[in-house]
């Protein structure tokens, strides 16, 4: 019964979206004199959000109860599974994750309807209509090509279980976070379309768009950080970023959103970069859709690719072509009519932000080409893979250049910089140069690129905080704090990457129980190897006693076997310290022959993710600061009107 109700709720929501689109077109043609239709559209958006939320909760309930008469549950869940993974299993498969996508899409529309009072009703109606138009495509995809509520007759006796690699607490939060980020960008897209349709591209539009961009960007950042850490400890390869197409699929919208986040501020504050900002808003959500296509169409096989049905791939590709093509056509048609933005000097805050945008766009293009090139080559029957050698070489130097830009950008004045070079820029430069020399001496000239990375990071740590120098910290606006924290996060993350690249120590051995192995300054004793059992798995577990002179710690890497579906995974063991992480993986072995052990000592590797979280925190501060400030401004404007 629950499945049928959930299914019906989805159909009803799709019908409301259709109605919302129809009303949007009517309003746009100027047939809404009293604003009643705009109000109705807002109500429709909210109802649609509530209905998809209800459908999603129904699916969670079905997974929670392991209702094996539902095809999806039988194929991806099992009754003997911890409850967290039953719930997380809801989106650990193709249909469920698409329902999550549609739900986030509708909830974003509802949010737009509820909170965007600052947009005038014509723009808001056009934006809600666009949101409904995108939503309809994905409703169709869900209902016709990937119905999560399909029944199984007769019901299965037992489910096939969730992919063990996905049975991890990180998974419970990683996809929803990332999806809210991906799909939240749809609102920026809709607002941009609405602005162009109604010829209202300007600061007010940018101010309405900014919270959505910031919020999506914060969530995308957090989702990428979580995904990176998950890959780091779950895959057991010791790396934090593999330039896997699936990782790139999340990086591309992030790059576009980062550029958009900066240019939307220019538009809001200075009424410049109008066409540019609109383009970025279109590109950002387009990249989200490209990412969805790459990940969900099954053309790239990985843990994320659930669908292998070619129909689904073509369906998403058609939606992608329709929306991206339509948006670009509208841009081409309308943008000539957008008034020229305010002027600015080349050396100014705007100029620096344009450089930031250009660099980010180039990086985005490089990642895009590298990710899609194998697909294009495959069409020509040439099988090629593009990996770290390409991406590190072409993206790395540009990323460092972007870091250098951060030394000066935030210190320049708007419109035209008059005050000469700030002293803190010189200070950052000196610190960077000193770190470069130190690094080159310490590493004896090896890992040249990591040395440069560390140097840029060291200077940036100072430069990022310099907008706060000489000011009364309590009176610095929250958005400025946000900027400083985020840029400092970039420095922290970069330092972690450089340290990991330059100073990691690795040992690979076959050891007998009782044997002691050294890695970096650590002594690792393989004390024992024994079988252990968990709720739905059994494992071979090594007991490692590790120390570096100050007390002994025990690490337990495992080789884990799951019954449903039958799989073996290796579980790395980590020992985290302030100055780095010890990482241990257990390989194969037998009584008498010894066991394979792979050990890494990675100094300051955790800075990579701490930095990422700081970046997200910076975005959050900016979001809260801006929202609070604009709320106050709006009240200040409204109040006198009552008199």
């Amino acid at each position, binding site marked *: 019964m629950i499945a049928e109700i959930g299914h019906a709720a989805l159909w009803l929501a799709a019908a409301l979206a259709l109605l919302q689109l129809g009303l949007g077109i009517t309003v746009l043609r100027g047939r809404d004199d009293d604003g009643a239709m705009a109000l109705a559209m807002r109500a429709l958006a909210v109802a649609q959000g509530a209905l998809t939320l209800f459908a999603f909760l129904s699916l969670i309930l079905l997974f929670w109860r392991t209702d094996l008469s539902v095809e999806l549950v039988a194929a991806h869940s099992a009754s003997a599974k911890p409850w967290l993974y039953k719930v997380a299993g809801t989106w650990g498969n193709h249909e469920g994750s698409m329902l999550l996508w549609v739900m986030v899409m509708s909830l974003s529309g509802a949010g737009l309807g509820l909170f965007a009072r600052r947009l005038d009703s014509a723009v808001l109606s056009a934006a809600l209509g666009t949101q409904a138009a995108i939503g309809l495509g994905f409703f169709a995809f869900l209902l016709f090509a990937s119905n999560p509520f399909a029944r199984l007759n007769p019901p299965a006796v037992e489910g096939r279980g969730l992919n*063990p690699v996905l049975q991890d607490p990180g998974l419970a939060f990683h996809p929803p976070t990332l999806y809210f980020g991906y799909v939240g960008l749809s609102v920026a897209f809709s607002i941009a379309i609405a602005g162009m349709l109604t010829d209202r591209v300007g600061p007010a539009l940018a101010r309405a768009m900014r919270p959505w961009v910031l919020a999506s960007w914060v969530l995308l950042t957090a989702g990428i950080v979580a995904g990176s850490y998950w890959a780091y400890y779950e895959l057991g390869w010791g790396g934090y970023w593999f330039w896997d197409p699936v990782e790139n699929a999340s990086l591309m919208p992030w790059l576009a959103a980062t550029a958009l986040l900066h240019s939307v501020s220019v538009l809001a504050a200075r009424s410049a970069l109008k066409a*540019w900002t609109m383009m970025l808003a279109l590109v950002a959500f387009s990249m989200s859709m490209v990412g969805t296509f790459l990940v969900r169409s099954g053309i790239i096989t990985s843990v994320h690719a659930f669908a292998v049905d070619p129909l689904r791939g073509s369906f998403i590709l058609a939606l992608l072509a329709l929306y991206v093509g339509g948006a670009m056509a509208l841009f081409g048609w309308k943008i000539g009519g957008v008034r020229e933005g305010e002027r600015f000097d080349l050396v100014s805050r705007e100029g620096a932000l344009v450089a930031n945008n250009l660099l980010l766009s180039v990086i985005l293009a490089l990642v895009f080409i*590298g990710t899609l090139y194998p697909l294009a080559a495959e069409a020509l029957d040439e099988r090629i893979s593009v990996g770290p050698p390409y991406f590190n070489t*072409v993206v790395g130097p540009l990323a460092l250049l972007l870091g250098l830009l951060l030394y000066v950008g935030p210190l320049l004045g708007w419109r035209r910089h008059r005050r000469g070079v700030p002293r803190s820029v010189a200070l950052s430069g000196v610190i960077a140069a000193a770190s470069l020399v130190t690094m080159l001496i310490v590493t004896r000239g090896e890992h040249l690129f990591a040395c440069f990375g560390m140097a840029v990071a060291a200077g940036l740590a100072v430069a990022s905080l310099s907008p706060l120098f000489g000011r009364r910290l309590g009176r610095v606006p929250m958005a400025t704090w946000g900027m400083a924290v985020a840029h400092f996060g970039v420095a922290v993350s970069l330092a972690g990457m450089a340290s990991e690249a330059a100073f990691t120590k690795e040992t690979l051995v076959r050891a007998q129980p009782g044997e002691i192995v050294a890695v970096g300054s650590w002594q690792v004793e393989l004390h024992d190897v024994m079988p252990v059992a968990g709720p739905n798995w059994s494992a071979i577990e090594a007991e490692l006693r590790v120390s570096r002179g100050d007390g002994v710690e025990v690490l337990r890497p495992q080789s884990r076997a799951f019954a449903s579906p039958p799989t073996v995974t290796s579980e790395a063991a980590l020992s985290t310290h302030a100055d780095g992480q010890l990482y241990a993986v257990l390989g*194969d072995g037998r009584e008498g022959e010894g066991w394979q052990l792979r050990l890494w000592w990675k100094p300051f590797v955790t800075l990579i993710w701490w930095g990422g979280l700081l970046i997200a925190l910076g975005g959050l501060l900016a979001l809260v600061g801006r929202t609070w400030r604009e709320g106050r401004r709006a009240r200040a404007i409204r109040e006198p009107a009552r008199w």
Partner: protein
Amino acid sequence: MMMRPKNQRLVLVSAALVALGLAALLALWGLQDRAAYFVTPSEIVAGKLEPGQSARLGGMVEEGSLQQLDDGVSVRFSVHDGDKAVAVTHAGILPDLFREGSGVVAEGRLGPDGVFIADRILAKHDERYMPPELDHLETAAETVER
């Protein structure tokens, strides 16, 4: 110097176009020698791959070919495609689903002695990552065996 309005849009548009053009050139340059080709044992035997050039070798692990080398952590096995076979060495932990008679993709390069040196081994049926190329290959090999 402040740019004139018409000027500014022109400058911005040309900056964007130049940047994207540079990106495309940079990408082409980068892809030229940094993309790894997928090769089969037959193609290696036929000399399609230069020694030292990075590649992904795909095929089936030959039954009974897996041997432990003396250093205790390296293995050597042979990969075939139903026609020709190539020896592969790898220092590291084999994936959990590595089996003789099953599909693998070895990422690495060809050594001067004709032995493929793998930095990473990906196994077919690995839930984390299944190299898409193997799908075609395994079906082909099964047909040959029959």
